[in-house]
């Protein structure tokens, strides 16, 4: 019931939104809808956490061997909560930015939310694929309609890029389905699949590339900075805060337990790739002058860390990724909100043109510094827990190269400090200049959104158990399966 609601509410409200011509009311309606969704998802965490509320199965496309089966496991809970939380934050944070044809904008945003929710709860491969695309299509329209001046080309590249990945995944799904004994797409029968077969070794890549493009992991990332730069910031927030988690979830739920032995086979190869990406992205971020691109590359770096620690197959890495998925989502949305404010107020995103904001807008400065420092995993902030666990996981990896991986990850952490501090310095410190001379401080809605984010940051940073316990079971099961299979070999 809960998962169905999580999908249906945004879907229907989104469709309704298209017909609300008046901008104010459309925006209000959208915010209201997201708040309802949030309430539902919280209910699923608290009062209605009984299994019978969290699962739903109904017949659908039997001839194809597919069914509408959705379930909220720990990871699903976590990510649905992230989605549900981030949407109101985004709407609040960008409350003051106006769009032409606002109703379409918010409608598409809500449709995308429905898609995301679906991806996070789908327990049927085909259903998963459907929602995967359903989340993508609205993003395409959002970015190419309301984006920057280069939007059409950039968005199209993004779309094609992601589409290539997803069709490859479709082939993979079909192949596996044809191998399942009962020719079904249900996750159970996928989990029952035999691990032998040379093809699996390659099918693995069909899935991984799809997910890697989504995350994105070096070297499949080139769509991402352009898209983040060109897309309307509200969309960028969802893209970077929530959408990238689709890839991670895909790996955790649809790749590791299904093609375990292949994943194990490649597990010496993918972490270095991801970690190279981490350092690569960080170095580029250091040289960025455009805030949006800088944040984009920092996001690539963080994702690289997560992706790497997915393939170390120990609980530290897995749990670290779980909690980091949430933390990264919250933090980066916070960063984007402020970036959006800066761009709107001063009409520039160039670090070189900004400076000295701290005098004029202390509140903004403080909140930004907190969020940015959380983003580089300072203790007692949410990201610290995640990075600590992931880093630990990488260090404890079974591979013989674990020392090198650790060193690379470490370099990444230092570099992240470098570019983040530089960004803070160039935006907020120093003498204020012509552009920033008469800067106004945050508005109440922005303060509210950022305040909530900061509270979340510290809450998770100090009492991380609340999240870790949520995903403890699921990551335990997955690792159990992996261990079982890899030990057999």
């Amino acid at each position, binding site marked *: 019931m809960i998962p169905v609601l999580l999908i249906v509410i945004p879907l229907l409200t989104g469709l309704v939104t298209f017909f609300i011509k008046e901008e104010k009311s459309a925006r209000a309606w959208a915010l209201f809808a997201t708040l309802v969704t949030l309430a539902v998802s919280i209910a699923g965490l608290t009062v209605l956490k009984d299994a019978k509320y969290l699962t739903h199965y109904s017949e*659908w*496309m*039997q*001839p*194809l061997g597919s069914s509408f089966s959705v379930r909220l496991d720990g990871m699903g809970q976590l990510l649905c909560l992230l989605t549900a939380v981030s949407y109101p934050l985004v709407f609040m944070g960008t409350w003051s930015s106006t769009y032409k044809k606002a109703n379409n904008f918010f409608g598409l945003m809500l449709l995308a939310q429905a898609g995301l929710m679906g991806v996070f709860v789908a327990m049927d491969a085909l259903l998963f*694929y*459907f929602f995967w*695309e*359903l989340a993508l*299509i609205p993003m395409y*329209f959002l970015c*190419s*309609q309301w984006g920057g001046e280069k*939007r*059409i080309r950039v968005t*199209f590249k993004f*779309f*094609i890029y992601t*589409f*290539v990945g997803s*069709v*490859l995944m*479709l*082939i993979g799904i*079909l*192949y596996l*389905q*044809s191998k399942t004994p009962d020719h079904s797409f249900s996750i159970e029968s996928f989990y029952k699949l035999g691990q032998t077969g040379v*093809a699996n070794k390659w099918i693995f890549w069909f899935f991984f590339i799809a997910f890697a493009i989504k995350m994105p992991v070096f070297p499949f990332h080139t769509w991402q900075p352009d898209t983040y730069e060109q897309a309307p910031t509200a969309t960028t927030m969802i893209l970077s805060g929530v959408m990238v988690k689709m890839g991670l979830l895909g790996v955790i739920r649809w790749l590791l337990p299904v093609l375990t032995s292949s994943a194990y086979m490649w597990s010496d190869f993918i972490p270095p790739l991801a970690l190279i990406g981490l350092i690569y992205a960080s170095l580029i971020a250091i040289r960025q002058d455009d805030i949006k691109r800088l944040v984009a590359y920092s996001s690539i770096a963080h994702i690289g860390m997560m992706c790497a620690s997915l393939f170390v197959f120990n609980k530290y890495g897995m749990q670290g990724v779980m909690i980091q998925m949430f933390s990264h989502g919250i933090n980066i949305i916070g960063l984007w909100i402020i970036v959006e404010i800066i761009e709107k107020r001063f009409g520039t995103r160039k670090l070189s043109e900004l400076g000295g904001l701290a005098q004029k807008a202390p509140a903004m400065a403080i909140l930004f510094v907190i969020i940015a420092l959380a983003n580089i995993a300072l203790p007692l902030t949410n990201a610290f827990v995640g990075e600590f666990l992931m880093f630990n996981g990488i260090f404890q990896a079974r591979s013989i190269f674990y020392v090198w991986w650790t060193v690379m990850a470490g370099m990444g952490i230092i570099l992240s400090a470098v570019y983040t501090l530089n960004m803070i310095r160039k935006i907020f410190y120093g003498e204020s200049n012509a552009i920033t001379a008469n800067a106004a401080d945050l508005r109440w809605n922005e303060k509210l959104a950022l305040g909530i984010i900061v509270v979340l940051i510290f809450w998770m940073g100090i009492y991380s158990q609340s999240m870790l316990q949520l995903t403890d079971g699921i990551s335990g099961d997955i690792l159990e399966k992996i261990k079982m299979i890899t030990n057999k070999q």
Partner: protein
Amino acid sequence: MNALILSAVLGVVMMFSGILLKQKSAIRYLAIAGLFVVLVSNILETYGTVFFKINTNGLMSFDRFALFFNSIVLAATLLYFILSARDMEKIGVNYAEYFALIFFILCGITLTSSFKSLLILFLGIEIISIPLYILTGSDKKNLKSNEAALKYFLLGSFSTGLMLMGIALFYGSQGTFSTEVAAIAVDKPSPLLITGMMLLLFSMSFKVSAAPFHFWTPDVYDGAPTVFTSFMATIVKAAVFIAFIRLFDDAFGSVSIQPKWQFWVAIITAITLLVGNITAVFQQSVKRMLAYSSIAQAGFMLLALYAMNTDAKEGILLYAAAYSLATIGIFAVLAKMTDFTFDGFNGLAKKEPLLAGTLTVFLLSLAGIPLTAGFIAKFYMLKATLLHPQGFWLAIFAILMAVVSVYYYFRVIQAMYFKEGDARTFETTARFRWALVAVAALVILIGIFPNLLLNWFYF
């Protein structure tokens, strides 16, 4: 049999309606009503009510497959009439005759969907082709139309020659025109038979516009009046496909001979997908782009021929339905456009949001985006191909080409929504708009609940 005879009769009726009825609308309603009757009669036949008990001596068999296909085609034609019949008035004075010809074509389609003898196949193909030559050339003042007609005629009759030679050789080795598998369960097929089979393969490939026999398609589709292009590209093509599959399933389905043609079908499929998709990328006219895209779609349908299993047969019906719906819709909109180039669509979304919206749905369906009928169709094709032991790489190639197709379909969407411009259209009636919305809804409905169709199919 119902559909065959009734459509023939209706053809004659329409012929004379031109003389009897003066207003065009009357003719149109007559045609639509008649077609509806045909459709109903065919559905009745599906459930066992045959009006005309005629012994065809095994030349034809109206089996479930055939009847379902007929229903789909007739339904598609009905939608086609509702959407585009009005546009035929623009072409020429012989309004009634066009309907007559279309009914004759339907009559031929019922033959190609149910033949058991090469003779019927031949007649069917010809009954389809000859009226098409005429419809292609029906815009007599328009040189493009003439040119298209002549090209189509010459190349078409050339391929007919090939087909006849194939049939002759087949007859020589088999001593019969019947396409019963039992007839040729030979362990060692003779060169005579192989040659005949190859010639049949070529001529059928020509008819379904599969590379390298596709050259007529772009020119003809481009030159023909848009309404008739729509008909040609959807219903007729689907019909020929069914004939293609029936032929090679019945006549050449035996294990001893299947590998010989499957190899070539695989290659032809690959080339078709490549040529169709790649060439469409650079087109400037949407109409011509659609012609190439129809080649590309044919490539996808050929996958069914390659796989040739239950999924494939269900899939081809689904594909025929999905593809026809979307393409009819697109051409219906296209016929309302004054300018067929991509730039002609700039900013259509602002002026005609409804047209743009429905057009988007159709394009998404053709591109095979999930939750549209097109996705389910492509999905079936890929599924069938993957079930084939060697199908893996062909499937991957197909899917990558599908990505390319996204490129040119989305060019239209971009033009409509994201480019500034003033797209001009002819005025559209409310009925037309509602019909368009209905078709779009149907496309999405099939996409979300394919069971509506699939539950019928069981072979």
